[in-house]
C-alpha cells in the first residue's frame, strides 16, 4: 500500500492559506501553532498514517512549499 514517509512544509515559503488542509481527502493536516518565516500560521502534519501520497496537496500548494516523500526507499511521489 502507498503511503508517505514524510511531508515536508518549507517554512521559508508557506503563507498559511490552508488549501492543503482543505483539499486533503484523508484529513492529514490541521492548523498548527507554529509561524512560518513570513509570519503566517502554518499547517501541521497531524495524521501522516492516513496519507496515501496522492499528491493533491503538492499540486494545490500555491507557494510550492509542500513535498510529499513517498514510502518506497525515499523515492518522491509526484
Amino acid at each position, binding site marked *: 500500500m502507498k503511503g508517505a514517509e514524510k511531508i515536508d512544509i518549507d517554512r521559508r515559503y508557506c*503563507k498559511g492559506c490552508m488549501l492543503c488542509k482543505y483539499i486533503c481527502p484523508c484529513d492529514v493536516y490541521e492548523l498548527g501553532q507554529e509561524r512560518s518565516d513570513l509570519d503566517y500560521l502554518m499547517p501541521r502534519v497531524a495524521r501522516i498514517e492516513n496519507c496515501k501520497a496522492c499528491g493533491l496537496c503538492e499540486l*494545490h500548494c500555491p*507557494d510550492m512549499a509542500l513535498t510529499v516523500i513517498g514510502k518506497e526507499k525515499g523515492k518522491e511521489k509526484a
Partner: protein
Amino acid sequence: MNPIGEKYLRKAFLPFIFCPGCGDGMIVQALARAVEELGVRDDLALTAGIGCSAWIAVYTHADVLKVLHGRAIPAAIGLKATKPSRKIVTVTGDGDCLAIGGNHLLHACRRNIDITVVMVNNQIYAMTGGQVAPSTPFTGKTQTTPYGNVEKKLDGCRVAIACGATFVSRWSTAHPKQLIKTLKKAISHKGFSYVEVISQCPVQTGRYLLGSGSPQFNLQWIKDHCVKQEDPAKWAEVEAQGNIPIGDFVQLEQPEFMEEVAKMNQRVKEAQAKGGDR
C-alpha cells in the same frame, strides 16, 4: 520547496509575491510540471505582459521577455519568427489578453502561429485594486461597479474559436492534473493554442465579487461552478445556470504560419532560379 520548484524557479526572487491562496502559484507549478514531463526546458521561452499573472513567467527559470501591457502576444510572435524551433508560452491575464491586448489575440488566432497562450482568468483587474474587467460576469459587484456590472462578459474561448485558433481549452486551478495534461498537449500542438485557466483571487474576486476572502471558499466556488462540457453548442445551457463550461474544446490540424512562410520562401527561390520573379 518541492523538487520541481528547486529545478524550475528563480530562487533569488522567492518567496512568491502572490497573496496567500492565489491561484497563480498553482499555475507556475502546472506549467513547470508540463515542461518537465515534455522535456522541452532548453527550447522554452516565455513572454508576459503586465499583471499578477505576468509574474508566473518571471518566476520560471527560462528565457523570459516581459513587455508592455497587452503586448505579450506580438513579442511571442517575434520570438517564434526569429527561431521557429523555440517553444513559446505566453502567460497573460484576462485584462492583458482580452482588453488591452485584445486585438493581438484575434490576429494571432487568425495567423495560426505555433505559440501557446495561457490566459489566467480571475474575472477582475486584480493587481490594480479590483476594477471591472471584460471577463467580469453580468451583475458582478466590483470596486468600479458597486451596483452591479451592466455589461455582459467577454468569453475568451468563444473569441479564440471564432478567430480560428486550432487548440482551445479551458480548465481551472481546481483541476491541476487535467491542466497539466492540457498544457502538455498545447505546448506540443502545431499551431496556435489558447488555454484559459479559471483562477482564484481571494483578495479581489473573492471579497468583492463572490463574498468571501477565504482561499478555501474561492477554490470551492471554482469547483462548484466549473462544469465539463466539451461541445461549444451546448455551452448555453451550462451558462444559463451561472456555471462555466470547461474542457478541451477544439483541436484541429491546419497549416502553421512559420511553415507556410518557409514554403513561400522556397517557392520564390525556385521561381527566381528559373528566371521569373514569382
